[in-house]
Structure formats: structure tokens, C-alpha cells
């Protein structure tokens, strides 16, 4: 019965002037109706897209806890953050943070994946060990490393040194990105492991037959074959770490001397002072920078993958 309905629907679909009802609708609309997707689209649009659209309006107003009414003020907020130097500093700090964090996270992840590649019980156990930091909240991670790296923290007391790990305006940013890389290395490791597993065995066999050593095999066969894993890892790490907050807040709070004040730390601080529109201006800049970085990155990495 239903069978015939489906068949006749299929046949009648292209026919002009077909009778009303099911037969007139294209097959897909009957079998996979839009209303299955609608709730997700509505929630996503309402609580993700709309705020991002509003973020193109509020930065140009005087919205704050000091004004009862919101009025349009043009570029005031942007000139304020540009003039006091926070804008350039935040852009520089955030991009540097993202770059270093992505490098460390990927380097650690790749090394771990190569070390733990074979599927033994020993390796499976240690994969779980290195995945542990992923499960611990970034805020908690930050506190752990604050306790380790404080001037009277555990590292200095163990080594007998007196180094202000979190007190340097130059090096603290690097140390915080190392912590970021530490927290997420387990995730990169898993994805690189999957990439390594996806390399066909006969390809490696062929390389060995041709007399390639482990080093040569890695650079000529395995590394190029890891392209999809690399794409995913680099994109997510780079874009994700531009949106960083917890680790920096818990280790340095943006200091010393604002040298680690990334976008989200700035927004958090300024929002706390009630300067909503100004925080929103920074949020718009973050949005634009992420878009500017993400689009060429995704296109470039996709193209690189297809070359292979």
C-alpha cells in the first residue's frame, strides 16, 4: 500500500499540473521534512546568530550601567580603545597566544601520537593518562599551574630556584600558551592517532621495500598522509585559542602589566566595570579577526589536502 503511494509520488513529482497533496511534493520533503531541522535552526539563530548580529550595533552605542537609555554614539568606543592602546595590544597578544598555543598543542599531540602509536595495552593506558588534562576544567588547570609556577610555588621550591615564571612581561605569555598546549595535547594526540591509523599498511610496506628508513618514511609517507588530521587540529587549536579565557584568568589574570590580556580577559574586566558597549566593541573586533583568520586558513588547508 504505502509502497505504491511512494512510487506514484516519485513518478508524479516532475509532472506539471499533478494533483494536490503528497504527490506534488518532491520526495525529499516527504521523507525528510524541514520541521525536523527547524527547532535547531531557531535556537541556533536566536541564541547564536542574532547576538552576533546585534554585536554589529551595540559597539556603536553608549550602552553601559551608567546610562538609562542607549544612544547611538558612532565610533566613540573604538577610538577610546584605539587611543589608550588596548586595541593593538589585545590584538597582538591574542594572535600571538593563538599561534603559540596551536604550535605547542600540535607538537605535543603529534609527539605523543607517534610515541603511543602501536595498539598495546601499555600504550592504551598512557593514552588515557595524557588525555586526563582534557577532562580537567581549564580554570582548574590554571590554578594547578599557578600553584606550580608561582614564585613561592612548587617548581621553584623543588628546583631550589627563585624564578618569577608568571611575572615576566615577555615570557609569561609563552608559559601560559605552554599550559594551554598541555591542557589540550590529549585531544590532538587522539586525532593524530586516528590519522596514523588511517595510513594504509601496504603504503608503509612499499616504502620499506624501497629502502626508506623510519625518518624518510615519516617525512615522505606518514606526514603527508596526516594532512586531514593536521587540518582539523590546526584549525580548531588556532581558532579555539583565540577565544581563550580560563587558563589565562586563573594563572595571570591578564598580567603582569596586561602582557597576557587577551580579548576575552579584556571583555571580562571591562564588562565588570559596567562599560558594556566598550566590551562589545572588543567582541566585534574578536569576531572580525577570527573571520579574517579562519576563512583563508580553512580554504588553504583544504586545498593542501586535495593536492595529495
Amino acid at each position: 500500500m504505502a509502497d505504491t503511494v511512494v512510487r506514484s509520488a516519485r513518478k508524479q513529482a516532475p509532472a506539471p499540473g499533478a494533483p494536490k497533496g503528497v504527490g506534488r511534493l518532491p520526495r525529499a520533503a516527504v521523507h525528510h521534512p524541514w520541521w525536523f531541522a527547524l527547532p535547531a535552526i531557531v535556537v541556533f539563530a536566536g541564541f547564536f546568530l542574532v547576538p552576533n548580529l546585534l554585536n554589529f550595533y551595540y559597539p556603536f552605542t553608549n550602552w553601559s550601567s551608567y546610562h538609562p537609555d542607549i544612544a547611538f554614539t558612532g565610533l566613540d568606543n573604538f577610538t577610546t580603545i584605539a587611543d589608550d592602546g588596548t586595541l593593538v595590544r589585545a590584538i597582538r597578544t591574542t594572535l600571538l597566544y593563538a599561534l603559540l598555543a596551536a604550535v605547542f598543542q600540535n607538537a605535543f599531540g603529534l609527539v605523543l601520537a607517534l610515541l603511543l602509536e602501536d595498539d598495546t595495552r601499555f600504550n592504551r593506558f598512557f593514552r588515557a593518562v595524557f588525555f586526563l588534562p582534557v577532562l580537567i576544567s581549564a580554570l582548574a588547570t590554571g590554578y594547578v599551574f599557578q600553584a606550580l609556577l608561582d614564585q613561592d610555588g612548587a617548581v621553584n621550591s623543588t628546583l631550589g630556584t627563585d624564578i618569577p615564571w608568571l611575572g615576566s612581561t615577555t615570557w609569561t605569555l609563552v608559559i601560559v600558551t605552554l599550559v594551554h598546549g598541555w591542557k589540550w595535547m590529549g585531544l590532538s594526540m587522539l586525532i593524530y592517532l586516528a590519522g596514523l591509523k588511517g595510513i594504509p599498511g601496504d603504503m608503509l610496506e612499499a616504502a620499506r621495500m624501497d629502502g626508506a628508513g623510519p625518518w624518510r618514511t615519516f617525512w615522505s609517507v606518514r606526514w603527508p598522509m596526516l594532512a586531514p588530521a593536521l587540518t582539523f587540529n590546526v584549525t580548531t587549536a588556532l581558532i579555539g585559542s583565540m577565544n581563550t579565557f580560563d587558563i589565562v584568568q586563573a594563572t595571570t589574570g591578564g598580567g603582569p602589566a596586561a602582557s597576557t590580556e587577551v580579548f576575552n580577559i579584556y571583555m571580562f574586566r571591562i564588562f565588570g566595570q559596567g562599560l558594556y558597549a566598550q566590551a562589545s566593541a572588543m567582541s566585534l573586533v574578536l569576531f572580525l579577526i577570527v573571520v579574517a583568520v579562519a576563512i583563508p586558513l580553512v580554504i588553504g588547508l583544504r586545498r593542501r589536502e586535495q593536492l595529495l
Partner: protein
Amino acid sequence: MWRYGRPALVVLLAGLAVGVPLWLVLVTSAKPQAEAIEPNLDPPAHWQPGANYEDAVAQGEMLRGLLNSLLVVVPSVVLVLILGAGAAWVFARRKSRLVSAAYALCISGLLLPPAVITIVMELRQLGLAGTRPGMIAVYTGMYLSTSIFFMTGFIRAIPMELEEAARIDGAKPLRIFARIVLPLLRPVIATATIMVMLYAWSDIFYAFFVLGGGDRATLPLNLYKVASAQLYLNNWHLVFAYVVVMSLPMVAVFLVGQRKIVSGITSGAVK
């Protein structure tokens, strides 16, 4: 040489990179305050884990934080999974320009940062600022992209014949979705669950803007409060007792679903 060198290196790395921080957390959470003021790797001279965890529960309002966290994280995860699966099914099976545009828009959240400041404004206008439904809506909107992305890729790999067979038997879309598609999605549901849970459970940034520090504060917000009091109280022992309790649920979830989680994360990423 490398046969023994490699495991030795792995053990050394694990000990230094994961063992040391973990040891620090565990011993400090068992020390009396006087010993914990300057955190170090010495074992406690006087063990008092019980008292510290009790204090963390009492002073850190841990139970209320736990309840608050559960009340926003669980509904968010459920909504992300159900709404995401419905959308992914349509996106994976239908082919038209409109569908691909809707799909692209819905996964844009994977890369774009949420506009957290204007979310607050919107929630105020909707009367949802500082409420759990508001927080749930924000998490759901934010993490839908992740689940839609993973699930769409997964459904595309499921043969259409399975659905067609059921359709020939007279099943309507809702029935096919509930009886055929959802059960097949189990592995990817496990992945999406852990990813969303992990993000939402750990989140303090969005919770700070949406919920603030009041009665509805989640566990991370409480931890932040405990640790901020640190400046004049020096209570590392409480901070780390809190860290342990907050991390345990995620570790437990991971251990239970480990195999599925790992296979799900990796198959979604490398395809």
C-alpha cells in the same frame, strides 16, 4: 634499544607532565592550611583530606554548585543532542542549495566566537538574564554546531536503504527517525555528549556573563570565588579539594564511555 627506550620515555613524560601536577593537586588537597600556604610536592606531614573536603563543601557551597551545574548542563546536553540529530538528519539526506546554506550557517558556530556581551543584552530583553533557561539556551545555541557537524557526517555514511526498507513497510518520518536513525547514531551521540558536557561543565566565561555569581552559580563559578578569596586567605588546600571534586564526574564519564568516545572523536575529525 628503542624497544626499551620508547616505553621508558613514555613513563618519564607521563610522570613529569601529568604525574607531577596530579600529585600536587592530591597532596595539597589533603594538607592543613598552614602546610599548603606555599604549595610544594612534599607529602603532607599531617593528613586531613576529610576536613578539607568538608570545608570545601561548606565554604565553597559545593552541593548547591553541583546542583546548579547539573540543572544547566543536563538539559543543554539533551537539547543539543535531540535538536542536533533532527537537523543533521535533514542536512545529511536532502540536497538543495537551501539545505547546504542552512547547514553551513548552522556549523558556522564551530569557528565563530559567540558574541557574549550582546547575548546578555538579548537575554535581558527576553527576561532570561540570570536564569537557568537563559543559560541553557546559550549553551544549546553555542554547542549545536558541534553536534550537527559530527552527526551530519555520520548520517551521510549510513546507507539510505535502511530507511527505505522501513518506508516500504509504511513507516512515517518520525518513526523512521526515532526507530532507525537515532539508534544508529549511538556512537556519535556518545561523542557529542562528552564534548558538550566537557565544555559546559567546565565553562566559567559564559556562566559569568549569563548567570553571574548569585544563587544559581555553577561549580566553576564557585571555584573561581573560592580561588579569588585566595588573595587574602591563602587556601590552596580548599582550591584543590574543589578541583578534585569538580573533575571527578568528567573523569568518571570518560572512563565509562572511553572506547566509544575515542572512536567517535577520531572518526568525526579525520574524515
